[in-house]
């Protein structure tokens, strides 16, 4: 027999000014199951709470209803009150008679009637409340960071600094990512490698960090606090424990025609190679696809050259399985291939480059040793044209609908670098808008114009053609109302950036959601920007959306703080209002599993005692640590087996009944 106590709050005059609280108390006393009802000026105050506590004890209440402000305001308060009085906190329901009643209605009669109806609905619900207990789960004190660019490195370093073990999985043979390819960074023009490589070295040397380079995530199981991840360490064909990184083998390798990824394919490397001098770990790797030994069985020059005896042609991929409490996505970005925009001539003329290629061309460690020359014939350029928004803000189909955010600034940087080093080279930038929100960003862009004399043209290029060994750029100059036909030696395309394509498969392993553009979705775009909606999965860097280096680093550290917060916990308290399935009613159809956004539902063979008959059935099982309690599965379930604790079918039906009575 339930004994319900109803507590009606005046909230000073906030409620009592419009709702006749006395009448509400009188009315609810008539409701079945109500053993006690009272009103008080401020139910949330200490004395109000004490009133509740003593009523619970005195009248042996089994559940309480508080008619007060929004549950978003004080539900937690009254749950604690109930718990202090020895009640299960889930035996508390709130009737929102302030925000949903007294504050929006002026007529006392009307407001009082509505308050009574809302109170009745809450009473009807609390009568069907069941005590709930939150489960707890242990937390594995280790984090996994997927992606070893600046985002992943920063997140890993911060987690490691806090004393937790962290592994980085990077698909390339070295960590460093895109930032390692950049020449200078805006708006300070400090050298990218100079600020990045010390961090790479730190990550490699930190005893809490383990690097899995040339590796990929193979599978992910589990849930927040308890992920089990299998990592495929691809065979380097070089023993990491023996290789000294001397590079002797890379020089001897006779297969020299492979495009060098680090230099965006603008020069070549051997089949055995170290990506670049500052690579971490500095260990050679054999690209089996291009290695003569693997292709023909002959050669083996590297093996004979290596004095450390590190070459191991027989090496095989290795699978490593580890447990993690948290997983960080830091999978980064790539530039789109602008060949889809044939009007710009990319792929037709070597002198039409992407910005990332241009970055390598300007870099002292790049394919030309930092000398700015036209890739087609090595001549010194006289005029360079930069085209912004190539494939960004493009809804035509071959581009991206979003702004890539970093292009305006790096183009200003490129223009400044060119004009600074080669004052004889003129520079024109075609822009749609120049977007420079950021500390010292607009000043930087203005310097390009005012100090360095970069020509900014408001307009867009329609076509780039090859003419007389040079390029001809036809574009609009909207502010001067003319069409320009410029001769140029190089055209640099600020191509849109897009999420690294591996993000998609990793995200689906994690059941983390991705938006229409392939970026990871945040748990909340403003208030939880570094968490994925999937508990225990965090977001760092461009995988979440375009951003520059300072923003990436800030987000990476924020992400680390969230991970540390999770790993610090001894136990995780689960949401008590989770779905649960009645195995006797479940018909094993998988409807619930398909709609669950968290992958919280799995199927198991269970032996059931069905009214004395033993049978084995495939039934849905909800992982309470993963379920977030949305209830999608309850509606999808055709047999009525699935229900949501705290918001059961019966409870909501009872509320509907009470309101419609």
């Amino acid at each position, binding site marked *: 027999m339930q004994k319900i106590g109803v507590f009606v709050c005046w909230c000073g005059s906030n409620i009592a000014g419009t709702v006749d609280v006395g009448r509400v108390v009188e009315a609810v006393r008539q409701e079945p199951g109500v053993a006690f009802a009272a009103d008080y000026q401020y139910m949330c105050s200490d004395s109000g709470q004490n009133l509740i506590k003593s009523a619970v004890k005195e009248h042996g209440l089994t559940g309480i209803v508080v008619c007060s402000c929004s549950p978003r305001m004080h539900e937690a308060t009254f749950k604690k009150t109930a718990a202090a009085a020895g009640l299960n906190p889930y035996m508390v329901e709130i009737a929102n008679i302030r925000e949903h009643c007294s504050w929006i209605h002026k007529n006392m009669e009307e407001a009082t009637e509505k308050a009574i109806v809302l109170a009745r609905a809450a009473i009807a619900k609390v009568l069907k409340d069941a005590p709930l207990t939150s489960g707890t789960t242990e937390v594995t004190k280790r984090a996994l960071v997927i992606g070893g660019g600046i985002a992943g490195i920063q997140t890993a370093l911060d987690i490691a600094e806090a004393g937790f073990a962290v592994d980085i999985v990077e698909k390339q043979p070295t960590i460093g990512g895109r930032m390692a390819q950049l020449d200078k960074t805006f708006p300070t023009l400090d050298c990218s490698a100079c600020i990045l490589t010390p961090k790479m070295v730190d990550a490699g040397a930190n005893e809490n960090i383990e690097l899995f380079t040339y590796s990929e995530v193979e599978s992910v199981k589990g849930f927040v606090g308890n992920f089990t991840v299998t990592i495929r360490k691809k065979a380097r064909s070089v023993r990491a424990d023996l290789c000294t990184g001397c590079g002797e083998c890379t020089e001897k390798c006779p297969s020299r025609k492979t495009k060098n990824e680090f230099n965006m394919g603008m020069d070549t490397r051997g089949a055995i190679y170290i990506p670049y001098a500052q690579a971490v770990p500095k260990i050679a790797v054999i690209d089996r696809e291009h290695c003569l030994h693997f292709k023909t069985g002959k050669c083996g020059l590297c093996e004979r050259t290596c004095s450390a005896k590190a070459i191991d042609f027989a090496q095989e991929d290795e699978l490593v399985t580890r447990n993690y409490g948290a997983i960080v996505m830091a999978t980064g970005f790539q530039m789109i291939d602008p060949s889809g925009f044939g009007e710009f001539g990319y792929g037709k003329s070597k002198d039409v480059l992407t910005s990332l290629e241009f970055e390598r061309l300007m870099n002292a460690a790049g394919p030309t040793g930092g000398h700015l020359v036209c890739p087609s014939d090595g001549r010194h350029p006289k005029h360079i044209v930069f085209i912004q928004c190539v494939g960004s803000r493009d809804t035509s189909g071959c581009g991206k609908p979003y702004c890539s955010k970093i292009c305006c600034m790096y183009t200003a940087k490129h223009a400044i670098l060119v004009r600074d080093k080669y004052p004889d080279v003129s520079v024109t930038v075609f822009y749609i808008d120049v977007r420079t929100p950021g500390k010292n960003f607009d000043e930087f862009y203005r310097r390009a114009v005012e100090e360095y004399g970069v020509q900014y043209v408001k307009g867009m290029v329609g076509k780039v*053609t090859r003419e007389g060994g040079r390029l001809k750029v036809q574009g609009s100059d909207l502010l001067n109302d003319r069409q320009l036909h410029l001769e140029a030696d190089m055209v640099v395309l600020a191509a849109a950036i897009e999420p690294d394509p591996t993000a998609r498969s990793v995200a689906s392993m994690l059941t983390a959601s991705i938006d229409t553009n392939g970026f990871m979705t945040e748990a909340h775009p403003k208030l939880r920007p570094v968490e994925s909606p999937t508990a225990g999965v965090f977001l760092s860097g461009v995988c979440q959306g375009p951003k520059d280096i300072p923003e990436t680093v800030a987000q990476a550290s924020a992400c680390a703080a969230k991970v540390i917060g999770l790993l610090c916990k001894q136990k995780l308290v689960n949401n008590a209002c989770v779905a649960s399935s009645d195995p006797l009613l479940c018909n094993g159809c998988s409807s619930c599993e398909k709609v669950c956004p968290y992958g919280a539902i799995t199927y198991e063979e269970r032996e059931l005692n069905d009214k004395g008959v033993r049978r084995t059935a495939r039934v849905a099982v909800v992982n309470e640590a993963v379920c977030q309690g949305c209830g999608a599965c309850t509606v999808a379930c055709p047999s009525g087996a699935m229900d949501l604790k705290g918001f059961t079918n019966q409870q909501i039906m009872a509320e509907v009944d009470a309101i419609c009575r």
Partner: protein
Amino acid sequence: MNYYYYPGCTLKTKAKALDASARAAAECLGVTLTEVPEWQCCGAVYPMAQDEVAARLSAVRALLAAREAGVPLVTLCSACHHVIKRVNADMAKNPDLRQKAANYLGLSTPYAGETKVLHYLEVLKNDVGFETIKQQVKHPLTGQKIGAYYGCLLLRPADVMQFDDPESPTMLEDLLRALGAAPVDYDQKNECCAGYLSLTDPAAASRRTRAILTSAREAGAEALVTACPLCQYNLSRHSGGSLPVYYVTELLEAALKGGNGHA
């Protein structure tokens, strides 16, 4: 391989060579082209105005004939192809135009774009295959440096025409290669020759064709090919004979049969 064939007016008069060579080559390749009975002029320009129904009707008639015969409709002239293909898309996508056309033509079943519209070159590429053509070439155009001129109408708008990459097309070059020629790539191959203005603004046509011819010549082309009578006329008129402009089908026929037209 049976098709309905829509030659269009120009191919019956000033561009007979285009028609004749295309038919001859088709015969060699086992492609049966049946001329659409009682076809009418397509109008030569696609009416971009969405409310223009009458100008679409003759295209719809040809499309209907092919629907009834149950075969794809093949075109050759770029302008006809452009008009017919786009009207076909209109009929498929725009219920208002579809109904109005049906009312005009007194159709009980409105025409809803059921016919597959193919350009002659698409038949060669997808149904015959350039590899097959290559094997049947008896007189390869070895060493001939030829620039392919696509113009606008075959390529744009790409979402409807779906002919080739609108900025970097290669279909003609691939065919030329199959014929043994050495195609020359140049950047003006998909830029407009101002054909529509050739009557009213010859100066504009002259400016545009000069840009195209210069670009092709500079890239090393010794001849141009096209599939459009208007482009052919426009380009030859301004090249002053310095760069011969052939119909692509003329070269095809020559390569398959020898002699005929091309030296």
